[in-house]
């Protein structure tokens, strides 16, 4: 994000009796995502009167407030002041390491997607591991952190039909998006590996490993390491 972009304020829309939707663009881009991350951090840090929570997404963020403490006009004025005074920031999201095992037993779609892109499985794995991913949004289910940054050379569209009962910990992707599942759920995305890294841990001080804006690097582990790491998990 450049200095000039910080002056650009989002469009404000009232939502129900207790929220404002701050929209930066109609379409997704890295710059839009970075502006949302910066606004999210600024609003959460300043915590204007009546703020309940902020939900960042791909082109906008929802600011939820307590209507018994403030109202749409007041919090919009507070947010305009805050965001106008925001200094330029580049996305300095924390770099997080997430382990991934590509063993065929836990990567049922890897051979097919590599073949679809005309590359060997080895070349696919190397390309995937070289990607720098950025958490753009949570959604669908608790702990589902949508990351962008799948290298163009390995992108494939979602499958025509969803597969049921995909185990938690599956590393799945479609298009330029990728995520590590936290629950057993159906998915139409390709399953290319398994991660023992706890994106969601009910016992830890910080239950969610990733925040929106964080950058993620995947590190390859073998099947034996996966088994050991899974044994040590705290769910």
């Amino acid at each position: 994000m450049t200095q000039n972009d910080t002056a650009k304020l989002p469009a404000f829309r009232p939502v129900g009796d207790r929220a404002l939707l701050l929209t930066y663009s109609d379409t997704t881009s890295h710059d839009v995502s970075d502006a949302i991350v910066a606004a999210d951090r600024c609003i959460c840090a300043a915590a204007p009167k009546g703020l309940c929570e902020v939900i960042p997404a791909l082109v906008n963020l929802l600011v939820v407030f307590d209507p018994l403490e403030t109202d749409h006009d007041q919090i919009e004025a507070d947010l305009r002041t805050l965001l106008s005074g925001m200094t330029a920031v580049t996305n300095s999201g924390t770099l997080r390491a997430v382990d991934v095992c590509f063993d065929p037993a836990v990567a049922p779609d890897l051979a097919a997607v590599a073949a679809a892109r005309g590359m060997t499985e080895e070349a696919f794995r190397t390309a995937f591991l070289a990607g720098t991913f950025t958490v753009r949004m949570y959604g669908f289910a608790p702990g589902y952190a949508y990351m962008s940054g799948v290298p163009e050379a390995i992108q494939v569209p979602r499958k025509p039909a969803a597969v049921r009962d995909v185990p938690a910990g599956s590393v799945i992707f479609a298009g330029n998006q990728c995520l590590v599942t936290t629950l057993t759920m159906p998915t139409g995305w390709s399953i290319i590996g398994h991660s023992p890294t706890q994106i969601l841990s009910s016992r830890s001080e910080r239950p969610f490993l990733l925040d929106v804006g964080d950058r993620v690097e995947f590190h390859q582990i073998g099947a034996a390491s996966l088994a050991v790491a899974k044994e040590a998990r705290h769910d």
Partner: protein
Amino acid sequence: MTDAVLRVIHAGPLVTIQDLGRAGLMRFGVPASGAMDRFSHGAALAALGLDRDAPAVEVSMGGLSLECRSGTVSFALCGGDFTFDHDGTRLPSWTVRTLHAGQTLRVQPGRSGNWATLAFAGALDTACWLGHAATHSTSGLGGGPLTAGQILHVKDAHSTPEREGEIATSEALIHPQQRLDVPVVIGPQEAQFTAAARHTFETETFRVSPAFDRMGLRLEGPLLDLEDALSIPSEPAMRGSIQVAGDGVATVLMADHQTTGGYPKIATVPLAWTDLLAQARPGTRIKFKPVTPAGAIASTKQIESQRRDALAQISIPRGTFAQRLMRANLISGVTAGIDELT
């Protein structure tokens, strides 16, 4: 005080442990969950003199049967017009009674309402997730769904004879009418709809369909055409968002909603109204009345104030049967005296 031990004989689908929800985690994909009808939940706890955010059992249309294995524990059932059979005595919801070892309790839906809260005098021992017992129904995280054979422990179980009997509350707070006029703030994605669809939404009548769960309430009625087939990027959603899928069918998002999604939202229901909508039986007619954001807040403030007053009243013990009898005798004694003088 000792623990009461309860065994689940039967639990219908979507009978879960709930509290008032874990707010503040939507940024991590976690909706608040919590009671579908938060007023009834608070009322059941208040009627037993307990914290209104404490865990209790949310009973669905599928009903619930329990037996008390050991201990003695008072309970309150609030929500809609459910009924319960307590060891052979059939009573309506909005009642406090005491369950003794060996007795059974069977909760069933009645003439109105889809959800009831069954609270126990004591601390319901339940699993917590991220600080709350509220169950997220699609994952089962939290206190979880109840299943046949399950044992429930109520710690520090006690009886509250001074609270037994009918729980007085206002009809307007608990019984949705056959036709609900629901205030909505239009948007935020109303621009995705045709002008005709927007007009239809604001003027036509919709009905609650049988397709409802803890995630949302599908509506029957005229279809709402989208301006074009292009989907919007995933945007945040909240309890009360009215989202419209590609088939033109509107759904009001409820307690276990997805926190982001690619379906445009034509309007948003003020949060307090979602509790009334949750209790609306399939077939209930709904008319959406556009209001300004300030109008929506005014409606919320009015409802919240009524609920606060009602819960304060409900939380006051009415006295034991003997105490109530004495009060009644005193009053009739006084009126008898007046009669003699005239």
